[in-house]
């Protein structure tokens, strides 16, 4: 006896509408490949470049609670804004975020990162100075590498002091592509 896609979808929608999920997730297609997007009642919680759910279920459950369920409506707002961003129609995200599981220093750095405007770049050292730790450029690099919300928190806009792209959790080609999309690279 196989559950029909329609019945399956109805259950997932009801569970979300009743507010029963600790965290809902879905796989969102994008020009840089499928993204796994997760959200809680508090806001957008995770974006993974590796969109295979099985890789992330346990970690999501540990951080947010065991009621983890795939649900399109749970990530609807983020999905729509990501679509608009990739279409070139959105230059800033208007989403609440849930940074549980992220250390205080990293949250502070990510807070500064969120202020880096669309189409511009900054450096690891500049971000470090902004959080009052001018010698912590390397630590800032680690925070960027573990950014729970890439694209939305724009770590692709952070480059080396000499202007080199340096690195990116989603791959340097993706970083370059995002910067081109924003007109920060020609």
């Amino acid at each position, binding site marked *: *006896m*196989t*559950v029909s896609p329609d*019945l*399956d979808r*109805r*259950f997932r929608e*009801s*569970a979300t509408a*009743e507010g*029963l*999920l*600790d965290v809902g997730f879905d796989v969102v297609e994008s020009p840089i490949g499928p993204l796994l997007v997760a959200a809680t009642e508090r806001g957008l919680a995770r974006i993974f470049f590796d969109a295979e*759910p099985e890789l992330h*279920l*346990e970690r*999501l*459950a540990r951080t947010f*609670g*065991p*009621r*983890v*369920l*795939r649900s399109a409506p749970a990530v609807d707002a983020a999905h729509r804004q990501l679509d608009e961003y990739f279409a070139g129609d959105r230059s800033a995200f208007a989403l609440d975020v849930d940074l549980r599981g992220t250390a205080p220093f990293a949250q502070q750095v990510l807070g500064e990162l969120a202020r880096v405007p669309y189409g511009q770049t900054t450096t690891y050292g500049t971000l470090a100075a902004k959080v009052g730790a001018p010698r912590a450029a390397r630590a800032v690099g680690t925070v960027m590498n573990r950014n729970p919300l890439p694209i939305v928190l724009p770590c692709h806009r952070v480059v080396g002091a000499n202007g080199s792209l340096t690195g990116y959790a989603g791959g340097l080609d993706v970083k370059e592509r995002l910067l081109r999309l924003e007109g920060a690279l020609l």
Partner: protein
Amino acid sequence: MDAVATVPPFERFYVEHRDIVLGFLRKRMGGQAAEDAFQETFLRALRAYDRLEHGEHLRAWVLTIAARLAIDTSRRARPTAHELPELPVEDGRPAYAQIEHLADGLPPTERAALVLRYAYDLSYDDIAVALSSSPEAARQAASAGVRRLRSLAQGRDLREQTPSAPKPGRIHDRLA
């Protein structure tokens, strides 16, 4: 000693059990009612899920929720039910609640087999599915549970220990 299984993320639990639960409900009610009961089963499971202390016997657990819903649904669906006298229930609780309560002291597999067989009237085939075992093993577990419950009932006055439980004589009748 084996480590106690941790509660899996709900997504994995749901994907693993959704077909079994739907099949179980379809055998007991019509298509639309089965689909409604399917949704309600997993919504109830989800409501209770963050209070589970371990991931053992999840299949028996979710089928117990489904069985309870199936019983409630069939009671509501009976058109002449309101004309019938209420069945005498000694302590105001339905049979499945009484048996579940009485079986509390049994080992988990015997308890599950006994409750699913006598309180929810499941076939041994269904119980085997619930317990991930064979119908024969399910039958043996239920019989062992009955024997153990009998010896418990003979050894003690259950009324004294559990004031709301039915008289021991009635348990014997029911489980004989």
